[in-house]
């Protein structure tokens, strides 16, 4: 596989520093040894619920947050080397935020916002910038007169298109999309998802698509990683993972997703909350919620093991 992004043993720990008085604050392991690689032109979906470390992972991938340990390599070069270049790693990897209106500075015009990456990352001259912005706006189906307006004048869907255009401006080949459609209504969500698919084909982009919504991830991804309590618990082809989940957590997720024509199948008293991050369990993080859990699950941490068909599962007793 020709990997454009390779992540190995990535960890992020918050807290744990020695304080002036008293005990050190307890460390919280937000992301724990996450490894994966993504091929050029591929869409890797990352699924997880709130607090599973999705956003922390995403922010590390684009260099907004330093990793505690582990490596991130873009086209074979370490991200820390890229950060040293002018403009940092923004030329290689870009980010689209969940809250699109919030990611546009309310006191700048759309033109000023669009010009920033062209000036600071690519050092483009005025005329070139104008042409490039026009091209980008055509690509995301936005009218050019929007450029003179301020962010508050746009709907959520339009704002997200502007953000996508800005992410494309720097000519980065990889785009991390952090819940890009979660704040949008279903009808607009479909427009943006289709636009993303078209852009990927047109520009041969690679996406890391993060979402809590399984159906949305399934609609756009080639492969899927399921994140639980900071670790990947299942990784494989989207079809395999969703139609034949092997980790009990993935199974719970697919069963929980409300689907027309599927009856309710989740018991009211299913233990519903992930463990306390300040007091992580010794064994598998999911053991407390898993009806298949046995003694070994509670004592030892399972590792991510490879199964036929590039289907990785972190479980001692996988399903199927």
């Amino acid at each position, binding site marked *: 596989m020709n990997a454009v992004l390779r992540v190995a043993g990535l960890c992020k720990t918050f807290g744990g520093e020695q304080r002036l008085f008293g005990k050190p604050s307890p460390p919280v392991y937000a992301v724990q040894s996450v490894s994966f690689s993504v091929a050029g032109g591929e869409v890797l979906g990352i699924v997880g*619920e*709130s607090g599973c470390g999705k956003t922390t992972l995403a*922010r590390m991938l684009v260099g*907004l947050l330093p990793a505690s340990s582990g490596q991130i390599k873009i086209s074979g070069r370490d991200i820390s080397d890229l950060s040293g270049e*002018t*403009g*940092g790693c*923004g*030329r290689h990897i870009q*980010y689209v*935020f969940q809250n699109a209106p*919030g*990611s546009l*500075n*309310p*006191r*700048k015009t759309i033109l000023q916002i669009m010009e*920033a*990456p062209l*000036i*600071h*990352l690519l050092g483009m001259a005025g005329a070139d910038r104008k042409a490039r912005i026009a091209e980008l706006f055509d690509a995301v189906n936005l009218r050019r007169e929007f450029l003179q307006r301020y962010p508050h004048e746009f*709907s959520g*869907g339009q704002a997200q298109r502007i953000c996508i255009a*800005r992410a494309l401006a*720097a000519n980065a080949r990889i785009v991390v999309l952090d819940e890009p459609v979660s704040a949008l*209504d*279903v*009808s607009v*969500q*479909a*427009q943006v*998802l*289709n636009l993303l698919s078209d852009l990927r084909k047109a520009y041969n982009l690679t996406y890391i698509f993060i979402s*809590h*919504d*399984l*159906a*949305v991830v*399934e*609609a756009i*991804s080639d492969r899927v990683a399921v994140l639980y309590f900071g670790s990947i618990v299942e990784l494989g082809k*989207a*079809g395999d993972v969703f139609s034949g989940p092997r980790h009990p957590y993935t199974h719970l997720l697919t*069963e*929980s*997703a*409300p*689907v*027309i*024509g*599927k*009856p*309710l199948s*989740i*018991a*009211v*008293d*299913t233990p519903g*909350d992930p463990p306390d991050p300040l007091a992580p369990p010794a064994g598998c993080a999911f053991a407390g919620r898993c009806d298949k859990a046995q003694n070994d699950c509670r004592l030892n941490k399972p590792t991510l093991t490879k199964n036929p068909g590039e289907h990785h599962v972190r479980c001692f007793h996988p399903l199927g």
Partner: protein
Amino acid sequence: MKRRQSVLAVLARNRPATLGASLLLVIVTVSLLAPLLPLHDPNATDLANRLLRPSLLSGNPLGTDHLGRDLLARLIWGIRLSLAVGIFASIIAAVSGSALGIFAGFFGGRVDNLLMRGVDMLMAFPYILLALTIVAVLGPGLLNALYAVAIVNIPFFARNIRGATVAVIRREFVDAARLSGMNNRRIITVEILPNVAPVIVVAMSTTIGWMILETAGLSFLGLGSQPPQADLGSMLGEGRKLLITAPHASIVPGAMIFIIVIAVNLLGDGIRDILDPRLRAGTLSRPAPLTHVRRESIPEPQSGYLLEVQNLHTHFIASGRVDKAVNGVDIEINAGQCLGIIGESGSGKSVTALSLLGLAPSPPAVITAGGVRLEGEELLSANFSRLRSIRGKKIAYVFQNPLATLHPLTTVGAQISEAIRCHRPVSKHSAWAEAVNLLNQVQIPNAAARARNYPHEMSGGMCQRVSIAMALANSPQLIIADEPTTALDVTVQAQIISLLSRLRHQQNMTLIFVTHDFGILAQLCDRVAVMYAGRIVENGSTEEILANPAHPYTARLIECAPRLGKGRRVLTSISGLPPAGDQLPAGCAFASCCDRSTERCRRGDIKTRPVAATHSVRCLYPLGCAP
């Protein structure tokens, strides 16, 4: 530039602010013109004419002081001095305090810690005492008083601006700027400063009045301006000695300080109202306990439904705009049924739910037409105490965000007991026992102990169970659940839906379930009402609508929701956006997005028509029917 003009325009509409601004303008103009005005020399003594009383006819309209100096001249020159000192002090404090605040907030960590500890130390002194101490060190004098007042105000600015900076840094656009290749210096000047500027202005507008008062105070104590030079404070201080023989010498300068400060504060309040986003968003008005009702007639009852909503119109009326959020909604529900109301954001589904018991926030909401009947009793014309006895007793609500809808400072057990005790005369003790019992019913493990928890000590799913328990407390005839699972994770959502479904069947509960998700609807509800732009466009049994949607909007909405198990694909989408509630077109609101629409769709009022026994649609060309 367009923005700035509108700010001035808004300010002009604020009458107190305009009053303050004009007062200030007059005072500033007069004091600036002081050298040109035909005034006496403010320092020329004339012992023959000491302590003259104010008189418009004499050469000294405000009288003279103990040295025979003209008080009018001294007053105007004093204003000059007081204003200049107040303004300079506030500029010094604002610039240095804001610089410290931005610096500490932006770099965070140790720098922040050190700077803010220092600020805390300074704030450990009572404000005036610190100013006094600084003057004690620097020695009396107007300039020293200025420095003292400025230094004392630096912590206030530093703290506020640091808070604002930290809030801005957390916003996504700063990260976006970083990814656009900007360096720290550019981010501070281009991204942070413009967004923090309103906070600086607001902080200045609150402190400038104070600073004028404080410098006047120091001068009054004899620590500010030194004779013969006089600002308003020292005039007051000198006048005080002759309080009984010549009260005008102290009353006039004091009144002048008061007028200046109140003008500054009036203007400051106006500026704050415009720049403070919280005030701007909701014009800081509190919602009344009951939605305002202004309708011309009450619809006649139809038949014996449990709940009957007829032609309900709830409009948001604010500053000349009328947002027709709910624009003619009819709902009927029988005991034991579960009706799902589905729609996108802004379709009016939540406002409909809130309007039933007068909970839509007024202002700006006004119910302009229609009626709501529970077992034949008209609720919108009921008086407040009658309505209150229905709220929570006959009709109960479950809201979207459980953490925000439970009182943050009260234990969940106490909140449920309260709901019980406000409708039934039960002892505290047995209400608590009932509350624990209810928590058991919604399957909260270890209910007796959990009842003593505060909402923030529970997860979102547990909080929502508490809300459901509270809704069940008085065995209501109807429960209205307004997107109760939208804020929850999928796995938790599935549990809550299962819980609601079970309770519904166990207790033969009647339920109105507001949602935007067809999947949940299919699992829980037996009837569906689809809302679009404030109206119900389709209404029928769940199976019927999911299998054969008749309205083009319903069909599109079902198709464009990605559904698990369908694999990677291109999704159907709806082009265009729903019209805003204040500019609804004539005819069908969906016409401009619909591929079946004709000219007829854009005219007149489109009526609901039946397409099957339990299925009606508001469309001229429904799917699967001859036009």
